[in-house]
């Protein structure tokens, strides 16, 4: 029964929409002439369509439209500028990465001024080493002399553990 109703309802809708073929339309009309219920259904459908055609579509008032459009904005969270929002955090974190990447992409060769500065710094370090070597050389020499001269007192607190270096320091 249900299948029967659905079938004729589809046929009626197609008929009203003008999409029913001529053969099916003739078949539907022939059926309606024998079936009063079907005929009544077709008439009701025609009447309903006519009523629907008479309904005028009116534009909503501007105030209502405006209010409806405002609803999504009102419910959206207010945008707050903050460096600690995830997107800004990522952007901030990217800055040093870019700096490092640029510095890594720079040619490894230092400039002439940088090399000259390094040479000067190295010379300072060497100067201190040389002076320290001179001091120790002087002390070693005097220690050996004092020890030879006064081995009993043993007041010397210099410790020399490398005979090899001692001889080199004496040369200095």
């Amino acid at each position, binding site marked *: 029964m249900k299948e029967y109703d659905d079938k004729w309802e589809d046929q009626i809708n197609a008929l009203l929409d003008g999409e029913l073929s001529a053969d099916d339309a003739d078949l539907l009309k022939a059926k309606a002439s024998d079936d009063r219920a079907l005929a009544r259904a077709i008439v009701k459908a025609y009447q309903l369509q006519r009523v629907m055609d008479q309904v005028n579509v009116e534009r909503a008032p501007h105030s209502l439209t405006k209010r409806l459009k405002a609803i999504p904005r009102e419910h959206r969270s207010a945008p707050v500028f*903050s*460096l*600690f*929002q*995830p997107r800004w*955090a990522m952007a*901030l*974190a990217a*800055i*040093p*990465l870019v*700096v*490092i990447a640029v*510095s890594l992409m720079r040619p*490894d*060769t*230092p400039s002439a001024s*940088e*090399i000259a500065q*390094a*040479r*000067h*710094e*190295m*010379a*300072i*370090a*060497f*100067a*201190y*080493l*040389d*002076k*320290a*070597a*001179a*001091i*120790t050389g*002087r*002390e*070693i020499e005097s220690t050996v002399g004092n020890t030879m001269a006064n081995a009993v007192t043993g007041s010397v*607190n*210099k*410790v*020399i*553990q*490398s005979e090899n*270096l*001692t001889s*080199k*320091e004496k*040369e*200095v």
Partner: protein
Amino acid sequence: MKRLLMSKFVIGLFCTLLALPAIAQEDELKNLAGYVDFGDLSATYGEPKITINLGGTMLNFVGMMSSSESPETSDLISKLKGIRVQIFSLGEDADAAKHQFGKTKSNLQSSGWEPIVQVNEDDEQVLVYMKAVDGNMEGMTVMVVDDEEAVFVNVIGQLNPTELAKVMDRFDVNVDLDLD
């Protein structure tokens, strides 16, 4: 709470990334056998008046630049992997600085450094330490403290003092260490 955590994360990440190059350079030298951890010298001596930190790459360039004018200098530099110098001016608390000097000396010995020369005068102390691995010199450390300043020099690599004395004439540098 979430924003607080995010702020800490951002600040921490920012500082870490900015410090990476310096950390990397220091770590490069730290891994070498001849590296000396002088500890927190600033806590005792204050801010250094001179800090020198030369890595192997820069020394190579200096050596190459010196090769034409002085092969001896170039040869000496080629054996070095790093040079670190920290020089502190001593004020009225020179005695405390000298006391701290002893602690640094103990740290060196516990780290496998061998004392080569020690000069202990009332007004001056000089320590020369060397580190050798399998008979090869890996580094030398020289510490000098007098009434005016404390000098810490860490040479990483091989350095022959005799060769150093030969090439010093080529460097027009003089330092104020009291030799009298």
